[in-house]
């Protein structure tokens, strides 16, 4: 006995062994088709009695095992069914001969045999024989089952007769000694008459009868016989057979206790046959019946209960039996099988510890040199048994050994396929699933070293199987899930081999389905590189769509009638955190910024990295990147163009790393920071590009109120100069530009600005609309800088004191106080001088806003905003350092005296209305006198509305003065011109800021005319009615002074006048 049957279980002791074999050439497929049908007849109620006969079918059975049939009758082949394929009558005799030969192999033990002939028709097939059945074809053989039942009945008859024959043996008769093959030579020459020998014979026979009873469905009888056998054999120390008797006892008890069976599938089948408990009871009652079929009385039940072993005893007896078997080296197989059977029983009893001890022992049972195949079988069965007792890890361990055995170097044709299959089965034992999702939750916790080994083996096996796609999948899995546990060298090795594999078969995102139905989910490389945050970026400011605030109702869309409620505010806050408050525009490139890092110790090349989206048709523009080894966080921008409108959701990104394509979904990324992934895509809008006639400026305007400026232009102008800014508007988008609105905003400046800084005519431009894509429209803006021309204090001080006409005695005390400050300057003369010079250059800044729209986006009420920053540096041109008036010959006129200072570095001509040009050299100051008609400011409304509040009085005054200045200026028309440039530059100069109250008074047409001296004395009454008594008083004083002191002089002594004028008493 050399070949163990690892599938055996205790119930097998009650079965009859029938071998089904093909004879001649029978297609395997057909054979198994018939075999399957035959084996479906595995239990049968015989002859209306309630005894059940169980049949065990084998299509292969080693004859040497058959020799142990006397030892345990279930090992004996009692029936033979041969299946043959016979096409013509010619072959028939030959076939029949073969059948006989086949019978002889098991001849000594066969009770009966059958031959099934397929394909033969004709007269031979007509004959009716009991041992041969003819069928026309494999599909046309309905009676097979019936035949088998008949066959089993015939087996039963023989069995029953044998049983009765042996059971009724008189003790006086000579009982043959049953023995196992290896014992035979030991008994040669033994005294057959000794009591010892006789007892041995009796004991063995009892045991044999017990076996037969058990097979014949008489459980009770078998128990009795076994008990007797145990007693007999124990007394003669016949250990091998004692063990067998004990095992028989155990088997019978197991059958009684566990009608569901102990061995996997067979058990299930049996349990199916006895779905009703009553049936199960019935089925086991036959043991109490006699062969005559007379119902048992209750004493039999009691007797069985007594004879039957308790569950605990079963194990004890099994252990005892095993210990007896272990005394015999040749009975190794029996011992091993007993162990297996006992373990199965223990598994049912849920006594895992004892089972594992038994198995541990079974591992060390030394059989003869096992073939590789047997080793595999042995390890597999060990694994299965461990699994059954719940030792999953141990089971996995043995299964892995079995897998390794499949490809042992000693095997000429390694079974990589089998190895791979077995390895896959070990996965649960090592708590590994091949789904990367199971590993995405937090840090991996498991037996990394062991799991990695297994994965490596899977990779290797799948490669040897010739399935590179599988190897790539497993290797990707290894890299993805075990990354934290790989050493730097291992990382390199793994990626190297991964690249090798992928060069032949790139890794995909498809589910790989194995032939046995196992599905290998795709492994996206979410850790190569690791993505830490995903941020959807807004469009650049100039392309950002704005919603027209058309209806009041739109802002009031919230259902609540309350303007503010803390609850709503809270909800809104939550919503905002998920939803992105900007929009993307169809057809425009949109960006998503990822922060990634490379965990590898070498440079990581990520190719074809793009976005995965849903909701909107999106054209992703993939990028390739190369991340340095162990890089820190590294920003990567992925771009794409939405092709349709609606809600777009960024689901993830796809990459190609080491030749493996991965689709990484953001939901599966642990520890990811995101500002929301859903954004609205609005319909396409045109795109406007601006180019100007002015040079671009590096100078950026300080952003105010969130305005960002796309382009900045700068220009340098002299104060008073006007320049044209030509703006070319080009539609570089794909939609027509239909609407354009231009607004300008002057950034708050300290400088006082006179006149319109920027002016334009939009109508000319709008005439060119709608602007087709690619077309250009021009838009002209006039820049006019007119700042204060008055001389500032600091400037005055810096100017040569000699020029200064303010050397007045009265002012000298102030100058004295001021002097030390002034004199301290020469400590750093160049800087202070420069600083003073620079301060003259003033800057003006403005933003031109172009709001434009068109195409479908316009229909939806969106527009775009493009800003052009304008930076104007205003250099001083001329200054009016002093202004004064002189009366002219006519009282209706007067001379306005202006001290003009050329602050440029060029020669400058200045002209005014009715005046000849005055040429001023750089830094020169000259006085020019302009004869002007006096103004009648009375035309201005004194106070626009009588009911105006007193608080506004001051402002009103200012306004009035401004209006006056404007009027004066328009009359003067002072212009300057610099010729020294290759292009003549010219501009206006304004006196608006220079005119002070006094000068204004002088310029005002007096309410009284000079010539009418007689009226002078009546002035008092008139003056009283005037609103400005102070001015009138001044006029009066001046008049008196003029008449009394200055009249004799023909010309006016300027200084006197000035003193008088500036410092009135």
């Amino acid at each position, binding site marked *: 006995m050399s070949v163990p049957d690892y599938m055996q279980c205790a119930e097998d002791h009650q079965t009859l062994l029938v071998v089904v074999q093909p004879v001649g050439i029978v297609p395997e497929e057909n054979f198994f088709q018939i075999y399957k049908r035959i084996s479906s007849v595995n239990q049968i109620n015989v002859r209306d009695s309630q005894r059940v006969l169980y049949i065990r079918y084998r299509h292969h059975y080693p004859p040497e095992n058959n020799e142990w049939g006397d030892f345990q009758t279930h090992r004996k082949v009692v029936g033979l069914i041969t299946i043959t394929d016979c096409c013509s009558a010619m072959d028939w005799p030959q076939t029949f001969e073969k059948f006989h030969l086949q019978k002889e192999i098991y001849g000594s033990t066969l009770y009966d045999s059958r031959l099934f002939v397929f394909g033969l028709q004709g007269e031979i097939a007509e004959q009716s024989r009991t041992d041969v059945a003819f069928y026309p074809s494999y599909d046309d053989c309905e009676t097979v089952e019936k035949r088998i039942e008949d066959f089993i009945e015939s087996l039963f008859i023989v069995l029953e007769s044998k049983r009765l024959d042996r059971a009724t043996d008189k003790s006086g008769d000579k009982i043959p000694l049953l023995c196992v093959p290896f014992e035979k030579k030991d008994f040669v020459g033994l005294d057959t008459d000794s009591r010892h020998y006789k007892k041995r014979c009796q004991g063995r026979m009892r045991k044999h009868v017990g076996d037969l009873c058990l097979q014949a469905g008489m459980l009770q009888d078998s128990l009795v016989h076994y008990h007797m056998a145990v007693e007999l054999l124990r007394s003669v120390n016949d250990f091998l057979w004692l063990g067998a008797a004990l095992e028989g006892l155990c088997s019978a008890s197991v059958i009684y206790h566990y009608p569901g069976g102990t061995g996997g599938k067979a058990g299930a089948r049996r349990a199916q046959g006895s779905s009703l408990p009553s049936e199960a009871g019935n089925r086991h009652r036959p043991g109490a019946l006699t062969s005559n079929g007379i119902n048992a009385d209750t004493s039999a039940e009691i007797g069985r209960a007594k004879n039957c072993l308790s569950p605990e005893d079963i194990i004890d007896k099994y252990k005892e039996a095993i210990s007896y078997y272990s005394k015999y080296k040749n009975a190794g197989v029996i011992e091993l099988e007993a162990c297996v059977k006992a373990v199965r029983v223990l598994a049912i009893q849920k006594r*895992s*510890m004892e089972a*594992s*001890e038994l198995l*541990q022992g079974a591992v060390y049972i030394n059989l003869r040199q096992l073939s590789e195949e047997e080793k595999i079988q042995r390890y597999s069965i060990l694994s299965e048994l*461990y699994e059954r007792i*719940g*030792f*999953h*890890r*141990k089971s996995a*361990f043995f299964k892995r050994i079995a897998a390794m055995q499949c490809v042992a170097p000693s095997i000429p044709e390694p079974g990589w396929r089998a190895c791979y299959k077995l390895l896959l089965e070990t996965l649960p034992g*090592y*708590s590994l699933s091949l789904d990367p999702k199971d590993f995405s939750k937090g840090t991996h*916790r*498991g*037996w990394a*070293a*062991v799991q990695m*080994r297994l994965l490596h083996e899977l990779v290797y096996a799948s490669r040897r199987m010739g399935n590179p796609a599988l190897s790539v999948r497993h290797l990707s899995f290894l890299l993805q899930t075990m990354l934290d546990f790989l050493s730097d060298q291992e990382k390199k090795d793994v990626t190297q081999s991964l690249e090798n594999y992928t060069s032949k078969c790139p890794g995909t995102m498809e589910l790989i389905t194995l032939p046995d139905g196992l599905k290998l989910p795709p492994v996206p490389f979410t850790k190569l590189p690791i993505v830490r945050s995903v941020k959807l970026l807004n469009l650049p400011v100039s392309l950002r769509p704005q919603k027209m605030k058309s209806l009041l109702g739109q802002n009031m869309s919230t259902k609540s009638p309350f303007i503010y409620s803390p609850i709503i505010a809270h909800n809104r806050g939550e919503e905002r955190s998920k939803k992105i408050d900007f929009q993307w525009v169809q057809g425009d490139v949109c960006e998503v910024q990822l922060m990634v890092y490379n965990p590898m110790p070498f440079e990581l090349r990520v190719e074809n990295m793009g976005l995965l989206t849903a909701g909107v048709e999106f054209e992703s523009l993939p990028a390739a990147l190369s991340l340095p080894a162990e890089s820190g966080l590294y920003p990567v921008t992925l771009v794409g163009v939405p092709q349709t409108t609606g809600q777009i959701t960024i689901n993830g990104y796809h990459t190609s790393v080491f030749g493996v394509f991965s689709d990484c979904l953001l939901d599966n990324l642990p520890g990811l920071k995101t500002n929301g992934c859903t954004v609205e895509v609005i319909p396409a809008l045109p795109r406007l590009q601006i180019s100007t006639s002015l040079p671009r400026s590096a100078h950026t305007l300080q952003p105010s109120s969130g305005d960002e400026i796309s382009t900045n232009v700068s220009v340098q102008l002299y104060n008073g100069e006007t320049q044209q800014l030509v703006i070319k508007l080009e539609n570089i988008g794909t939609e027509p530009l239909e609407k354009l609105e231009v607004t300008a905003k002057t950034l708050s400046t300290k400088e006082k600005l006179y006149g319109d800084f920027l002016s334009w005519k939009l109508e000319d431009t709008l005439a060119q609309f709608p602007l087709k894509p690619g077309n250009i429209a021009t838009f002209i803006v006039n820049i006019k800088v007119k700042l204060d021309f008055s001389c500032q204090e600091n400037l005055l001080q810096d100017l040569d004191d000699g020029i200064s006409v303010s050397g007045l005695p009265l002012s000298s005390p102030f100058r004295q106080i001021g002097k030390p400050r002034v004199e301290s300057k020469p400590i750093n003369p160049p800087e202070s001088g420069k600083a003073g010079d620079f301060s003259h250059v003033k800057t003006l800044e403005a933003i031109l806003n172009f709001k434009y729209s068109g195409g479908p986006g316009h229909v939806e009420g969106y527009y775009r905003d493009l800003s052009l920053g304008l930076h104007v540096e205003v250099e001083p041109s001329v200054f009016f350092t002093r202004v004064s008036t002189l009366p002219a010959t006519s009282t209706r006129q007067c001379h306005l005296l202006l001290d003009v200072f050329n602050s440029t570095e060029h020669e400058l001509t200045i002209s005014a209305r009715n005046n000849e040009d005055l040429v001023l050299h750089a830094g020169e100051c000259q006085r020019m006198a302009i004869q002007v008609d006096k103004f009648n400011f009375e035309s201005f409304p004194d106070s626009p509305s009588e009911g105006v509040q007193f608080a506004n009085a001051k402002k009103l005054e200012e306004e009035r003065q401004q209006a006056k200045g404007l009027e004066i200026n328009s009359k003067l028309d002072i212009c300057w011109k610099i010729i020294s440039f290759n292009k003549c530059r010219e501009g206006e100069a304004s006196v608006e800021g220079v005119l002070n109250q006094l000068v204004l008074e002088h310029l005002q047409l007096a309410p009284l005319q000079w010539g009418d001296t007689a009226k002078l004395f009546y002035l008092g009454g008139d003056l009283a009615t005037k609103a400005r008594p102070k001015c009138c008083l001044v006029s009066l004083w001046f008049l008196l002074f003029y008449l009394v002191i200055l009249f004799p002089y023909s010309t006016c002594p300027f200084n006197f006048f000035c003193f008088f004028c500036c410092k009135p008493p």
Partner: protein
Amino acid sequence: MAVCIAVIAKENYPLYIRSVPTENELKFHYTVHTSLDVVDEKISAMGKALVDQRELYLGLLYPTEDYKVYGYVTNSKVKFVMVVDSSNTALRDNEIRSMFRKLHNSYTDIMCNPFYNPGDCIHSRAFDNMVTSMMMQVC
């Protein structure tokens, strides 16, 4: 005397595993891993009853040809597994017991460290030294 000492978390993943012949580390991983079956079985056999008086020492888990595997489980279901050379007959049950107790004390010290996150792998020099001393004692 011990050739391999392992600390295994409640969820049956290793917190710490170290063996003396480092070149064959994987073998011990397998040994300890499979021994968890027995540990699980023993724990479930003990049942919920008598949790307080429960013996923490699990005894011999299983013998292999070359090694004996002993187990110990704390009340928080953290397991200690110790693999001992079977040729070392001098080692009695009592010594194994005391070694486990030492191991347990050292583990308790680690848990007392406020910077240690329960469930993380153990990287403690003190524990390392203690394990080394237990491995070096005889061999």
